[in-house]
């Protein structure tokens, strides 16, 4: 029983990562009709915002400790971060400790600007081009971004730990423990998803964007500058992807190809959810997350060997064959 509960939690947690990425992807696809293969890269860039902030906070000056030696036998240079010398060791250490939550503040403007620039500079010109061209250009961009990160940060994963306070485990029930940060992640995802939904559902911006999804030209005829809103939308999607990345850092250490790892999966999630449907993408994210968790239990893998390897794809096939447009897809979107 407890085991099932924990697997459900795991599923929700995985699901929230899938749902967040898929949400951003659907925003871009649904509004702009652009198949964005660089979306995974946006997620990765978000995670590297946290890495960068961590590096900035850890900028240090060096003092020589004559008692110790380094690997070449020379006196060891000890590094002290500037923040520690400015704010005192305790406060400084605390700031460094909280670098991931702080990175949220850092990532929001960075990702928004990144999204704006990407849309204005590149994507804008591809609205009317075939999806194949969009795939090629965004895939090219993804590679470029990835390589730039690799050139600067290396290929090895870089830990961005959660603050001490949030990194232990929480006892939810007798015998059921769960990592605090994963609970935080889930709540954060719920908050973002709720926020995006509320924003789109209850503001006129949302109505305009929904209208723009359906018919750009007519919305323009009504005096609305839809391009600007689309740019904002792209920035928003980039920010959602980026924040998902920042918060994901403590769960799994960021590396330069984490975006590619998620890319295919998030496309599967979006399509299973149904093209153009935001709730569909979120629902599919959670469904696949939970099923994946259950498929990886020993019980499942002993019953059907290898099921954990293929579960997502298997479920995707079954759903797509039984429901022609995924869980909640709209007719006519990307069906030809």
């Amino acid at each position, binding site marked *: 029983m407890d085991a099932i509960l924990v697997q459900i939690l795991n599923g929700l947690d995985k699901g929230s990562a899938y749902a967040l990425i898929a949400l951003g992807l659907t925003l871009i696809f649904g509004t702009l009709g652009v198949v964005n293969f660089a979306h995974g890269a946006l997620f990765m860039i978000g995670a590297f915002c946290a890495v960068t902030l961590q590096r900035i906070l850890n900028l240090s000056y060096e003092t020589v400790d004559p008692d110790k030696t380094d690997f070449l036998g020379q006196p060891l240079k000890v590094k002290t971060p500037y923040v520690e010398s400015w704010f005192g060791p305790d406060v400084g250490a605390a700031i460094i400790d909280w670098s991931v939550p702080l990175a949220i503040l850092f990532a929001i403007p960075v990702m928004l600007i990144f999204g704006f620039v990407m849309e204005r500079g590149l994507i804008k010109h591809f609205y009317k081009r075939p999806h194949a061209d969009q795939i090629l250009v965004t895939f090219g961009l993804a590679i470029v971004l990835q390589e730039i990160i690799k050139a600067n940060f290396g290929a090895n994963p870089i830990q961005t730990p959660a603050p001490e306070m949030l990194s232990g485990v929480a006892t939810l029930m007798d015998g059921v423990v769960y990592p605090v940060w994963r609970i935080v992640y889930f709540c954060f995802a719920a908050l973002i998803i709720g926020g995006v939904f509320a924003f789109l559902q209850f503001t006129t911006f949302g109505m305009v964007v929904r209208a723009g999804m359906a018919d750009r030209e007519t919305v323009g005829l*009504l005096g609305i500058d839809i391009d600007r809103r689309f740019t904002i939308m792209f920035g928003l999607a980039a920010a959602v992807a980026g924040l998902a990345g920042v918060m994901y850092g403590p769960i799994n250490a960021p590396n330069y190809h984490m975006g590619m790892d998620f890319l295919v999966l998030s496309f599967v999630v979006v399509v299973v959810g149904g093209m153009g449907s935001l709730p569909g993408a979120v629902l599919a994210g959670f469904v696949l997350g939970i099923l994946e968790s259950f498929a990886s239990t020993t019980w499942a893998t002993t019953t059907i060997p290898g099921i954990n390897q293929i579960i997502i794809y298997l479920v995707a096939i079954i759903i797509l064959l039984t429901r022609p447009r995924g869980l909640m897809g709209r007719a006519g979107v990307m069906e030809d």
Partner: protein
Amino acid sequence: MNVKPDFSKGKNLAETAPAYLSVWDIHAYYGESYIVQGVSFNVHEGEILALLGRNGAGKTSTLRAIARLDDPQITHGEVWLDHQPLHLKNSHQASQLGIGLVPEDRRIIPGLTVEENLQLAQIAPPIGWSIERLYELFPRLGERRKQEGVTLSGGEQQMLAIARALARDIKVLLLDEPYEGLAPVIVDEIEKTLRLIKEQGITTVIVEQNAVRALELADRSVILDTGSVVFDGAAAEVLGNEELRAEYLAI
């Protein structure tokens, strides 16, 4: 027939534009294909102009060019509305300057209710008639305000499209085939509405295959053929001119 307004010396001289809406020698392309081949005409304040011509003459393209939609692209020529250079604007700016287009296939936005379709028109300034006033004009829309716009019948959709244009403070109403695919009773009803709108002092350009009905409504008429103007004059003149009717309108 047309006087080219002397726009060359800047803003002040723009006031020399001879009419409310001036279209001067516009040329427009869909990609490589050259469709609007030098169209010029003037519309005066408060009048109804019927823009006629055969299929493929370029009527829709002309209206779309005036409303500054992305396609077709104007490569040459000028469009002035009330001393504002529309040819330098894009579609949402044109709309904000007072252009209201009721497109060929009505373009009711899917997923939105009747009321939301109208609200959408009132997001960007300037705002025209209030939604309540529009429901007074089209009571059938008021009854269906919570219904999704695209599930309306063809006639109601046409009403919604016109109402949506009026929900903005427009100076010129561009109607593209408002009668197409409508039952004769509905056509009568819409015609009544258009007369009502004219009484409100709104300038109108109407494109219609049902030329007789359009000419009966209009003050003046412009006839297009393969992308250029072949006639510009009073509507009654067309009705009286056998040759013109036979050659370009086949009526």
